[in-house]
């Protein structure tokens, strides 16, 4: 116990030193995970299906944003209003392409199965197939090399928290994330469309008896989830560039976040994302970077075994 205590104590000093920098980075990552997790949670709530191919929706949003930036950003880095305009355009481009991909995915890979009332295993296998098809197609069409995104803004530190710089990039993610989450929350809680989604999530047959158009609602669920996933893809691409395999790990982490927060629970997805992002970031002090993924998978396994309903519980069906 003494050696362990020693180990923790030594690392706590490092933690104190780096805490705020790691925390800020972790929050930014967490917001991204949350945006992707929303896609998983919405689809799961409505269809009881893990959309394994959501990682490719994330990737497609990233590529869309990358192409827009490549087309519009010249050799000099824009500033001011041009920056803001470009960023918004990038987010919109990512979101639109993400929704379109999600819609097409639902139509091609899931709807035929739904119409035939296929067993659940079939959906999962089809999702895996769709995921592999999409990212390898992207690799074929856009090449296998990673490329960096032309920057539409200058990434300086906007302000400092206790000595840790908060970069423009993190501020952008924070603003975009908060706006999207709030809008989504209002959409699901207050609008007719949202009520439809909640109704289908709660009980499909009763909802259809009540006049909710199931096919349309499911399509819209995918579209909304896809929009957020695609936007997250652009934000990720802005900071890290794009490559055809970019979707796999962030999406897996996002799924962990969704499960952590309570799959099917919208607010749970956001909260789970934040918790996972920060925890993962702080972990690097204690555990070698190589094992961070083990930590993330470990959290996933633990949550599924011990408390599968997650922190906030499966609740999309009830009032969010």
């Amino acid at each position: 116990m003494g050696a362990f205590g020693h180990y923790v104590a030594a690392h706590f000093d490092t933690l104190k030193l780096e805490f705020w920098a790691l925390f800020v980075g972790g929050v930014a990552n967490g917001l991204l995970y949350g945006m992707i997790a929303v896609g998983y949670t919405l689809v799961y709530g409505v269809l009881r299906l893990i959309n394994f191919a959501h990682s490719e929706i994330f990737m497609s949003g990233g590529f869309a944003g990358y192409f827009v930036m490549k087309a519009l950003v010249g050799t000099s880095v824009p500033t001011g209003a041009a920056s803001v305009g470009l960023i918004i355009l990038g987010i919109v481009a990512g979101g639109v392409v993400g929704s379109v991909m999600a819609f097409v995915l639902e139509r091609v890979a899931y709807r035929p199965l739904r119409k035939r009332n296929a067993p659940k295993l079939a959906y999962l296998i089809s999702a895996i197939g769709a995921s592999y098809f999409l990212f390898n197609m992207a690799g074929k069409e856009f090449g296998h090399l990673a490329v960096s995104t032309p920057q539409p803004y200058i990434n300086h530190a906007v302000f400092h928290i206790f000595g840790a710089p908060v970069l423009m990039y993190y501020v952008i993610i924070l603003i975009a994330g908060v706006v999207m989450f709030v809008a989504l929350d209002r959409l699901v809680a207050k609008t007719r469309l949202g009520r439809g989604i909640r109704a289908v999530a709660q009980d499909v047959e009763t909802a259809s008896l009540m006049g909710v158009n199931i096919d349309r609602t499911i399509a819209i669920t995918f579209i909304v989830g896809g929009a957020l996933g695609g936007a997250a893809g652009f934000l990720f691409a802005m900071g890290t560039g794009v490559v055809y395999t970019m979707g796999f790990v962030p999406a897996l982490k996002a799924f962990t976040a969704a499960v952590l927060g309570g799959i099917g629970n919208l607010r749970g997805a956001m909260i789970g994302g934040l918790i996972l992002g920060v925890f993962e970031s702080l972990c690097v002090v204690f555990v070698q970077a190589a094992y961070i993924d083990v930590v993330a998978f470990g959290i996933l396994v633990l949550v599924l075994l011990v408390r599968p309903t997650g922190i906030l519980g499966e609740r999309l069906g009830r009032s969010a």
Partner: protein
Amino acid sequence: MKLRLNKTVAAVASSALLLMAVPAVGIASASGAASKAKPTYVIGYEGPLSGGNLQLGLNMVFAVELAINQANASGKNHFKLQLAKYDDQGDPTISPTEAQSAVANRKLIAIVGPAFSGATAAAEPYYSKAHVATVSPSATRVTLASSGWNNFFRVVADDGVQGPADADYLVKTKGNKSVYVVSDGSSYGTGLATAFAGQASADGAKVTSVTVPGTAQCTDGTASATEYSAAATQAVASGAKAMFYGGYYCDLGLFLGALGSAGWTGPIMSGDGSDSSALITGTTPASAASGVLLSCACAVSQNSSFNRAFQNLANFSSSNATYAPESYDATNVIIAAMKKLKRITRSALVAELHKISFKGITKRIKFQNDGNIAGAAIYVNQVTNGKVVQLGLE
């Protein structure tokens, strides 16, 4: 016990037929149109000719092809040469199959390659048993020369030379007293980083070694670029003055972006795995790659006739073609050895290669007993103005 076989019989019989029909359609190999008087021999190239590392393979195979074409065109040799390409995708699970295929080709007398160290380690036993000389332009893993393969040669200095040379450069020449050594967890990166760290400590620098694993974005790693920001924060907080990265350009590109955001200011150096213009295109933002030092046992060719001929054949410049000059030299040393032999056989070629001394366009090629190149030339390059520029020997 009832086994349902009515469909099985038809299905499995047809698959067996498929198996038998396949070779009839033909497998890509040297087609061997024998010339009238001179015997034809095949020089093979084994390396990545598809997938993410395709460009590297193309660099090398065009150079091999150029050397072969020139040898045939000169008319001064008592043999004719053909090129056979074996695509192992840089994968040690695929290279044994390709090696066996190459060895089965009776006309094949030598291989330029394999390009990747892992693929070489997996394939060498087959080449060794068949006494086929393999002259690699780029496989730099140290243990390849000490595994008892008489037929193994390489025209570049190995990682055991590159790592310590880099350490001497960064610590002694550039005067950095503390170095943060990062390995990407791959077998290449770990080897290089360990060699570097050892020499750097011996040179009196304070060394901190960490592993920041490769991402799923670049290799089959399990990390994601989102973790790099935490790793970069750690690096900055360590207070080290310089950094050495053992790994490949793709992950380094991602890491450089995170380092820039975290506020890293010291020099960053990496090895030949990062020595590529793809490092610059893969770094977000591209300015984060500026000033990065890259070492390589490979040289940028200063030989203008080679450069012109290569450009004509490959349609891209040899200054961007890592390992092209080395592949050219590897092919030419094989040809030079063949010229000295009256009767060309695989074993005779291996013996001759052990003896030969040949002036190539990159260096004088003479092999030590274990197949390593004599001499320890490591070059250092730097990313300047969006391009990789060779600074000189370390």
